[in-house]
């Protein structure tokens, strides 16, 4: 374990920002801290960096307790939101700062700076001072400086935030390779779920209560711990409908627009209870009228979304449902459509607690071939 945080508590006056947060990151791993602003993500980074001290709890790096260890002795590289570039130095000198401090020879510095600058697409502005750089360029310069030092641990606070959409997409594809090449242990803060899923080996989802779930992108997307997390991942957002499961012969079902939909028999404990069903828009398919279990939907609007087509529809009870399908595949754009729900890809949440119900593995579920 390269980095371990145990029961970290941090308050500013009476405002408790972190209350017993624990976290561990392995060597070469990229851990994404994901969550809304105000969740304490940046405070956590600053604690690791040693810029501020925790009120309680321990931070260990490579097995060594960091209490009292100065920021510059922690082997950490940082790129924070406020850039913090040296205003009197040009981009090259800023990026080279950690290398110059180590007395690396000039040729090697030029080579390293050039390589990183090309990858981050700032090689054309290397002689500009910070005030001549756009915000996106400043952010990439700060990122380049953090990478140049080849630190053991890299703390990146939303480094692509101010970068335009096209470049952001390119960097999202290229950054993981660069981070792996450096074999750095990375903590990456973002509020963009796509960035979190694309870059993270694991994602820690944080909110005002602390870290609510840690897992691989697959685990977070496919088995979210609660409604809030299910809503944070995916675009369009997951459909959430109030339901109360009923026991039927051979299983459990819910009713949508008067049509019974069979769900995993392992949800039998929830029969008669107040639940919320979560259906991802891509787990719904349009079918022909009269198909088995087809639910009628009044089409309200069709909105294309990055190689997907999103349809907003209303059930007979006036509940909104969003359906997503690959662009170019058939589906109704007006009038009435008919949908079926992929029962393998629904989530059931307890309406009172918001927690996801894990279906019990039953013989019936196994024989139905329904995944947990």
């Amino acid at each position, binding site marked *: 374990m390269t980095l371990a945080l145990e029961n970290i508590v941090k308050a500013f006056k009476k405002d408790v920002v972190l209350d017993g947060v624990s976290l561990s990151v392995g060597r070469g791993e990229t851990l994404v801290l994901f969550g809304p602003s105000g969740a304490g993500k940046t405070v956590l980074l600053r604690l690791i960096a040693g810029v501020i001290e925790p009120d309680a709890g321990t931070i260990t790096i490579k097995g060594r307790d960091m209490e009292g260890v100065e920021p510059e002795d922690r082997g950490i590289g940082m790129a924070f939101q406020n850039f913090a570039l040296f205003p009197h130095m040009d981009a090259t000198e800023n990026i080279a700062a950690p290398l110059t401090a180590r007395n690396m020879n000039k040729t090697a510095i030029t080579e390293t700076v050039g390589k990183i600058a090309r990858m981050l697409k700032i090689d054309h502005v290397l002689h500009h001072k910070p005030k001549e750089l756009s915000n996106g360029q400043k952010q990439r310069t700060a990122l380049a400086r953090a990478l140049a030092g080849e630190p053991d641990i890299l703390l990146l606070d939303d480094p692509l935030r101010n970068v335009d959409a096209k470049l952001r997409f390119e960097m999202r594809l290229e950054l993981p390779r660069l981070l792996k090449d450096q074999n750095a242990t990375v903590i990456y803060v973002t509020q963009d779920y796509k960035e979190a899923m694309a870059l993270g080996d694991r994602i820690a989802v944080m909110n005002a209560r602390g870290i609510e779930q840690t897992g691989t992108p697959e685990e977070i997307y496919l088995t979210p711990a609660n409604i809030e997390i299910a809503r944070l991942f995916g675009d369009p957002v997951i459909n959430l409908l109030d339901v109360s499961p009923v026991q039927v012969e051979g299983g459990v079902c819910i009713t949508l627009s008067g049509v019974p939909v069979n769900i995993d028999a392992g949800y039998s404990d929830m029969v008669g209870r107040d639940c919320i069903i979560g259906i991802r828009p891509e787990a719904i398919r349009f079918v022909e009228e009269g198909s088995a279990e087809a639910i009628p939907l009044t089409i309200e609007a069709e909105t294309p979304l990055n190689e*997907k087509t999103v349809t907003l529809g209303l059930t007979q009870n006036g509940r909104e449902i969003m359906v997503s399908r690959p662009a170019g595949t058939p589906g109704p754009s007006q009038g009435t459509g008919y949908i079926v729900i992929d029962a393998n890809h629904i989530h059931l949440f307890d309406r009172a607690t918001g927690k996801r119900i894990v279906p019990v593995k039953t013989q019936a579920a196994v024989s139905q071939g329904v995944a947990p």
Partner: protein
Amino acid sequence: MTFLLKLSGVDKFYGPVNKGVHAVQNINMDVMKGEIIALLGSSGCGKTSTLRMIAGFEETSRGTITLAGREVQALPPVRRNVAMAFEGYSLYPTVTVGENIAFALKAARLPTAEVEAKVREVTEMLEITDILDRYPTSVSGGQQQRASLARALIRDADLHLLDEPMGQLEPQLRTLLRGRIKHYIKERGLTAILVTHDQTEANALADRIAVMEGGVLQQFATPQTIKEAPANLFTGTFVGEPPMNVFAAEASDRDGQLQLDLGDGLHLTYAADAFAPDVRATLLARKQIMLGVRPYAVHRDTHGARAQVIANQWLGDQSHIAATFAQGTIVLVEHDRADVAVGDAIHVRLAPEDLHVFDKDTGAALSHGAQMA
């Protein structure tokens, strides 16, 4: 069907005509009644100046603007019968959000019950019913934006002008509200022009998109046409996410077959009749061209050209794969989860019908698919 709004030879100069900054250059545009139009471009492209000239906040330097049968370019904003949601055209700070939204209807002396019903409808749609009794300065930027949008959409006007209407919305609400707003506008037969820098928003909402760059209208067409037949390299790469793949290529005739050399030893070979004769002739005459292919149109095929995977990112309902290809990187979008790992060799096929050919120097489209542009 006849046009509701027509821009003819519209110019905007900041400073003296022909001498100042030529921010909007000779725009010609017809908008039909009931259409949703997006003015799309990056900052400084002239889209907001164009919108402000239509609204009357900005003087039209040259040309005419015809709205609902009358020339309006010399009229003050209040006499143009347009409803607006603009940045800087803010809510009245001294009255509540609810009163702001109802203001125009009350001024038009609509019965109270009708005003209340309309306010309820539009504020429920935009999820701001809980802030109606609050004052604009006490609500968040995103809520102010939605209140401003509600105030515009509730009005009965010839034209609705919306400037970056959803910029500050939380991502979980954005896609849902786009659907609701589109339905609201269409159901009432309103005509709307929205300005945005976000191509996703333009694609989601607009019947037609006006792509602007450097003060010039680059293309004015349906989202489908811009996707399948972009007028030039700019619109081709600006609209679409992930962006279109672009490669420099050299075309040549190899024993009747058409060969595209992408550099780094990579050749794509097509049968003699893969392209229409005029396209083939153009390709061979030009030799040096730019080749574009949309990420969704790149298919894996064992007989395709070799590429090496550098990233495979799963986003829940799409996989984005990047691979080194020719002298650059090629990006693929797949809807199923792609079972490839970094370092794997894959083979990709670029079908003639999915290729866009652009002029190397001007960027103008030469052909789309196997047909001439």
